[in-house]
């Protein structure tokens, strides 16, 4: 193994490899609830060629590789289940190109969402990308690989839908381009009009290759952003509220939140309706459309818009959302994990009931966020429970609650988002056998030595 260490030093330089206990400890866990497992080496490549050399070395030595962004999925997806090389991609952080008119950006595999956002604000203020609510260190690639969501998900779909091209180091070490960039200098499409091969890498959690460059679609950045807040205490009304709002095709983002704390929030559902505009007139028109769409609930006294004072707005409008992260300290214990299904919006009432039920049964704080996806074709519903990392019993309870909630969501027709390895097994037990066979064949074909993030999407 010391040969591997020396070979890694040779590839990336001695400053960027560690086999020390401290790095292995830190990179062997994430802030969620999955058990740790430590890598043997932590490596930080700077170039695609270095990644390529590392992959070739790993194949030669049959050492597992786990590529990692910031590890903020919280479901242990980059915990190296069988040790080996942990590839911290964050040194590959260049923003390589912005095509202003075709509206896409090409970034390296470890570029953070925050760096991209900051770069666009500074250099291309009329363009934006879909910023997730995760902390700023979340990387563009990792977020796409887990089918992450962002501020434009309601309008444009998953962040993986917005990918416009990939450069991938295959598990056997070849560099492969996916999408229009495979035949052209332009990165405008991840598939069409070619066969869409991006599906071989997005959603696979690094088990089929390492994305070293990614094209991401950009969208117009309007001059004004604003938010309205609709409140109802009737969960059963939420799907219809969402249907009415999405029917207008007016809004940037629609998010439903529920939390028992502070106490005044308990039993209420807050629907945040985000909108953008280039003029006050446009903004007022969009607000009027929201009012008109939901006026019926005001009349029936089932709900209504809550006034948000200007000083209350910045936290709602912040990108990324610091409030999302603050949830981790509700139990003053540094932990929360959120999981849950992508599911039809009609399932909102039963899911929220289950969330509350499990919170009560296991004596946990909860919060729920549901984000509308792609004009209402589905939503991401998150079961979120906090826990105190200094309280093993509470951690156990949170884990059970999440597991049972995930089982329920699957039974009700949802598909678990960023599933941990146990939830992946739950999915694979239910999945169409031929689909599973296809997935297994694809993995074997691409990764004959089984070195890529082993333990994930691995049929038993």
């Amino acid at each position, binding site marked *: 193994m010391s040969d591997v260490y020396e070979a890694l030093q040779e590839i990336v330089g001695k400053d960027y490899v560690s086999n020390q206990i401290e790095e292995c400890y830190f990179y062997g866990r994430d802030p969620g609830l999955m058990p740790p497992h430590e890598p043997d080496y932590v490596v930080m490549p700077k170039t695609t060629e270095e990644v390529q050399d590392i992959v070739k070395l790993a194949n030669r030595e049959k050492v597992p590789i786990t590529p990692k962004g910031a590890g903020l999925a919280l479901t242990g997806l980059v915990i190296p289940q069988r040790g080996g090389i942990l590839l911290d991609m964050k040194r590959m952080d260049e923003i390589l190109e912005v095509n202003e008119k075709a509206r896409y950006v090409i970034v390296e595999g470890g570029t953070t969402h925050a760096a991209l956002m900051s770069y666009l604000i500074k250099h291309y203020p009329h363009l934006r990308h879909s910023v997730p609510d995760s902390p*700023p*260190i979340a990387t563009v690639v990792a977020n796409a690989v887990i089918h992450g969501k962002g501020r434009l998900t309601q309008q444009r779909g998953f962040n993986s839908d917005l990918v416009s091209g990939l450069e991938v180091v295959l598990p056997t070490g070849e560099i492969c381009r996916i999408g229009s960039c495979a035949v052209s200098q332009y990165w405008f499409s991840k598939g069409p009009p070619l066969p869409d091969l991006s599906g071989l890498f997005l959603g696979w959690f690094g088990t089929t290759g390492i994305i070293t460059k990614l094209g991401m679609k950009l969208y117009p950045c309007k001059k004004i952003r604003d938010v309205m807040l609709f409140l109802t205490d009737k969960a059963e009304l939420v799907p219809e509220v969402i249907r009415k709002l999405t029917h207008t095709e007016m809004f940037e983002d629609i998010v439903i939140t529920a939390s028992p704390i502070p106490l005044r929030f308990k039993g209420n559902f807050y629907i945040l309706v985000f909108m953008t505009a280039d003029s006050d007139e446009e903004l007022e028109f969009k607000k009027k459309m929201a009012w008109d769409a939901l006026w019926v609930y005001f009349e029936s006294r089932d709900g209504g818009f809550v006034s948000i004072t200007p000083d209350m707005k910045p936290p709602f409008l912040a990108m990324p959302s610091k409030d999302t992260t*603050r949830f981790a300290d509700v139990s003053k214990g540094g932990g929360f994990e959120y999981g849950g299904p992508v599911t039809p919006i009609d399932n909102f009432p039963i899911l929220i009931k289950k969330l509350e039920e499990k919170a009560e049964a296991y004596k946990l704080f909860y919060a729920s966020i549901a984000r509308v996806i792609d004009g209402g074709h589905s939503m991401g519903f998150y079961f979120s429970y906090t826990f105190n990392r200094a309280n093993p019993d509470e951690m156990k309870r949170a884990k059970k609650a999440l597991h049972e909630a995930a089982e329920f969501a699957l039974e009700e027709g949802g598909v678990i988002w960023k599933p941990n390895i146990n939830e992946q097994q739950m999915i694979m037990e239910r999945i169409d056998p031929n689909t599973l066979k296809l997935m297994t064949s694809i993995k074997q074909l691409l990764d004959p030595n089984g070195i890529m993030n082993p333990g994930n999407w691995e049929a038993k």
Partner: protein
Amino acid sequence: MQQKDYASQIHRCFRCGYCKFPTDYSSFNCPSYRRFRFDSYSTGGRLWLIYAWLKGEIEWSEHFAEILYACTTCKNCTEQCPMKFAPDIVDWIVGARNDMVEKGKIPARVARFFEAVYGYGNPFKQLRSDRAAWANGTKKYTAGDEYLLYVGCLGSYDENGQKIARCMVDILNASGLSFGILGEEEECCGNEIYMLGETGLFENLAEKNTLKFKELGVSKVITLCPHGYNAMKNTYPASDGKFEVYHYTQILNDLIKKNKIKPRQAEVRITYQDPCFLGRYNNIYDEPRQILQSIPGIELKEMERNRQDAFCCGGGSGNFVNDLLAGSVDSPARIRAREAYETGAAILAVACPSCLTMLTDAVKAEDLDDRLAVKDISQILQEFLPVK
């Protein structure tokens, strides 16, 4: 002081990584993370490792200690962390260092720093009798002087720091201010000792200084160094410090406003480095800038990261001596030197002898010394005072 509570609180860090950034997320603003790039060197990494050490999941090691001491206590993490415990983060780190010191488990370089201060009263192992060698007959403080000019270890022994001390003496003399120095009787301020976790030695130094000030009837102290300013302003009161403390930029700015100093015309573009212990620790952002802007013809061009987002020079927590972040093009001071150069400024102004030393060396390492001069604000001001 949250130091003692750190063990019961430190698990609250979620390692979300906000601590790595400045406000606009344009780059990485944690000096040790930017230098080493392993997450273990970020604040989140450090806090998780300390917690692991407390739980017995990892053993103490030289590497662990270096990770802990590579933190310059610049307070960027405190500025950026979204959690309610943000103000306590540096205290937690200092608390863990304090535990390490008590167990005798610290990096060799840090141990040498303590030994030097303990044995010689300064981290450079210079003779106490040489403490005023820079002073060239500067008047010692006597009862009735309005201010004590406290020059600190860098001002006393470091070549760059001595230049600042001499400039300050000249400017204050020219302004007619009544002041004196302590000379050989001056003790180390203890700020770095405190940050490095040697609480006992810090208390001893604080007590000695406080007693000396009391004995001489000192009621107003001017410090050259933001580190000393911070210790006396924020930490000494626990040691019963009863005197007013000013950083020299506050005094000079006041003298300029009162027309007691009138700089002459200059034509130069200057950029300014906010010292962490002046800015993030004590919210002094305007006075240094006002001094520079009082010099007619000076164009102050900010670096992209400034004020509460300023990037630390890497010298805090004794690293101007221990230099745990050195040896790379990614060393914070070298990054900062490049940023300063990108502004097109001819002078990188500082208001801290530690920044002056760190950035002077960095500018040389970057081979920029013929295009970018690093000068303390006192030096710049003295340069543009009317010729007598």
